[in-house]
């Protein structure tokens, strides 16, 4: 019950509503472009004339496309729910939109932590390898 209570005194006034609407509009464009780019990436690997490491290239592109699509589904959810909440004044949709935005940034953050960790591990292996020579 406490979760649904209005514990904050901040409301979505007309100016904030307009900013949110524009943010959601652009977020939807970004998400759709990311889906198209992921598809184009896969098609260009499949139709490319480079025979060497084609399978490896396809797998790598498939992984990146998968990550990009998963990530941008959250951005699209934010855009759709926020736009819908602004037109219907649905608090539930608004909360769902904000939750999706939270997940979107969180997933990017976690992916960056993973990539940075792998980068640091790679450098450590390189240094140890150089020291063993």
């Amino acid at each position: 019950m406490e979760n649904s209570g209005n514990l904050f005194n901040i409301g979505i006034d007309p100016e904030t509503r307009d900013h949110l609407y524009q943010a959601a509009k652009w977020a939807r464009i970004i998400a759709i472009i990311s889906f198209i780019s992921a598809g184009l990436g896969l098609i260009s690997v499949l139709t490319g004339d480079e025979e060497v490491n084609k399978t490896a290239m396809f797998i790598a592109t498939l992984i990146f496309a998968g990550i990009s699509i998963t990530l941008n589904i959250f951005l699209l959810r934010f855009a759709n729910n926020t736009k819908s909440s602004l037109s219907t004044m649905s608090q539930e949709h608004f909360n769902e939109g904000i939750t999706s935005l939270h997940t979107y940034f969180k997933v990017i953050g976690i992916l960056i932590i993973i990539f940075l960790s792998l980068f640091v591990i790679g450098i450590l292996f390189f240094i140890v390898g150089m020291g063993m020579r």
Partner: protein
Amino acid sequence: MEQTNEETLFNLQLDHDSGSHLKETAKWSRFLSIISFICLGFGLVALVFGAQAMSEVIRKAMPGMEAFSGVMVGAIGVALVILTWTTILLYRFSNLTSEGIRRQDQELFRNGIKALKNYFTIYGFFSVLGLLINVGTFIFELTKN
């Protein structure tokens, strides 16, 4: 001020759920913007100290296009400026939004959402530009084959 309160009375509110999720969003976006600032710093150092070497690499990769190498280095500089601008917007979003929620300040919160809007606008504009370049390259590759 009263008018604003009246306007928001029956409208959407930042309730417990959305408020805490937005605070978490601000935390993650602050983390992302700090990482971006660090990467941009490395990029700037590389551009300042490695511009000559970079120009040399481009010259070797594209013989006959010597005059183009300076333009390419300039384009990388412009890209760094645009990325810095978007990172500042993301940082502003995280700071203003979390401060707005903490202090229960409507104006700070509004400015935070405005920064998010500007961030998505610039990101979206360059996404459209990137897609046009990608589609152009894709069609060029198809017609070449």
